[in-house]
């Protein structure tokens, strides 16, 4: 092969071509390194300082974390997260799986029904919270509706009951997210090989039994993805609390995301707010790392 003039002329261009992909990616690399990891580190540093209304870089050791653990409101928020997260995840999964399995039984107008189950996911949590705040209004909401419909003794005042207000958040969050879980499982069900079912049916197993023992266990990956997404939504839940209860009555419906916001931005407790943010990150990592680990392992085995 002889070197032509055209190739010679192209060589500086070639060099540019080699660098182009890196150049194109460079701004995003900068953003990720600074805006993601740099900022996390910055918040981490702030959590070890005495910062209040303004950032000051005076070392405070673990004092902010100690104050956080001494703070009753933080414990209420953390316990609420466990209660809210547990119920929200459990109920959304149960409803999602049930509706997906039922919709998988050759239902006419399936697409239409699916659309109606999923639309809440398109709404902002602020809209959802506003709607449910009204529905659960003691005296005017469902409380009154069911009494008007003849259920004389019906009372629904959870929204102002410090012991039950978290259930209100659960109801609204389940309404918003369970349709999405249904869609995930329905997509998973569509990928199951029908011959497995036929084989099981030949063995004389009933349809519910086949779903329980054969089909659903084969959807383990979908289950884990759903679990991941739901816990992520739960830990980040902020807008729903803001719209529905603002953390009240008192701080009985506080969640960590709400705690972080009010201590950092309203009460001028930047150091302690940062400490709470770092603990939220820890909670996400505690769920994410095992999940990614098992994902990677299953991919390597596949």
């Amino acid at each position, binding site marked *: 092969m002889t070197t032509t003039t055209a190739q010679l002329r192209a060589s500086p261009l070639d060099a540019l071509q080699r660098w182009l992909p890196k150049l194109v990616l460079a701004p995003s690399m900068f953003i990720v390194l600074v805006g993601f990891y740099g900022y996390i580190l910055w918040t981490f540093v702030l959590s070890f300082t005495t910062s209040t209304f303004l950032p000051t870089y005076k070392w405070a050791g673990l004092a902010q974390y100690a104050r956080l653990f001494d703070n009753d409101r933080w414990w209420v928020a953390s316990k609420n997260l466990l209660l809210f997260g547990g119920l929200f995840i459990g109920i959304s999964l149960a409803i999602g799986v049930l509706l997906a399995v039922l919709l998988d039984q050759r239902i006419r107008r399936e697409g239409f029904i699916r659309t109606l189950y999923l639309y809440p996911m398109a709404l902002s949590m602020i809209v959802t919270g506003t709607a449910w705040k009204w529905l659960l209004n003691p005296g005017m909401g469902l409380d009154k509706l069911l009494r008007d419909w003849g259920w004389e003794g019906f009372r629904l005042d959870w929204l102002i009951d410090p012991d039950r207000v978290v259930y209100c958040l659960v109801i609204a969050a389940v309404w918003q997210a369970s349709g999405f879980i249904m869609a995930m499982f329905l997509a998973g069900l569509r990928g199951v090989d029908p011959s497995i079912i036929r084989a099981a049916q030949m063995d004389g197993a009933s349809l519910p039994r086949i779903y329980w023992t054969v089909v659903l266990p084969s959807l383990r990956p979908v289950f884990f993805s759903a679990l991941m997404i739901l816990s992520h939504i739960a830990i980040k839940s902020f807008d729903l609390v803001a719209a529905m209860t603002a953390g009240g009555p008192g701080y009985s419906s506080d969640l960590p*995301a709400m705690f972080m916001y009010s201590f950092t931005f309203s009460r001028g407790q930047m150091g302690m707010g940062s400490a709470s943010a770092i603990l939220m990150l820890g909670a996400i990592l505690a769920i994410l790392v095992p999940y990614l680990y098992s994902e990677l392992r299953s991919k390597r085995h596949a």
Partner: protein
Amino acid sequence: MHSPADKPALSLSRIAIHAVLLIAVLLYLVPLVVMLLTSFKTPEDISTGNLLSWPTVVSGIGWVKAWGTVNGYFWNSILITVPAVLISTAIGALNGYVLSMWRFRGSQLFFGLLLFGCFLPFQTVLLPASFTLGKLGLASTTSGLVLVHVVYGLAFTTLFFRNFYVSIPDALVKAARLDGAGFFTIFRRIILPMSTPIIMVCLIWQFTQIWNDFLFGVVFSSGDSQPITVALNNLVNTSTGAKEYNVDMAAAMIAGLPTLLVYVVAGKYFVRGLTAGAVKG
């Protein structure tokens, strides 16, 4: 999988299945119906009737008042959402193109680092981000919110395009490179024309995420630059004066309508985005 139902005819279990599905439809619909009904009632109807009672007078006053209160913030949301969606989608497409077809040493590591952004609890970056916006002179501006949404939307937009592009056969790009086509020519002539579905998914995902955002809106904006979600929350949770539930519900509908409309028109892409965002590659 459609389970092979041997008797599609009416049986007791099939009636039960349909009954459960129908009840579920009603339960999902009730909040929307209540919002609509309440938004068209007069305050008198609201206090005398109940959630599902029909308004004695269909009144638009709630909508008029709500629009009068939130219309400025509605436009803010548009000013924030449109540029942020377009910019983050464009950057995501280019990133995905590089990460799938022009890999270099370290690009995979970068992708891994970026993916974590899909799970990042934003609380860990709020303070530094607000200091930075202040330094840039973008505090409490819609441009500042555009910037924040672009930065923290990159993880998802890149993921969408990268996962779409890895499934395109290498041979296509290799042949074009042998023909002397460069980085951008290949992108414009070959890759972009086949990207319509993933562009739709990405646009719709970003639109719903950014339109529905509350956290960034409440932290990084104030007064005149607030998005609709923040304005709605302020309206609903102010305790001064008598509560006008018809106005609250109309405002909530106004805040919810753009994303609902997108969902109705392009539901297919919406669902695909949700599941693509869910099942990480």
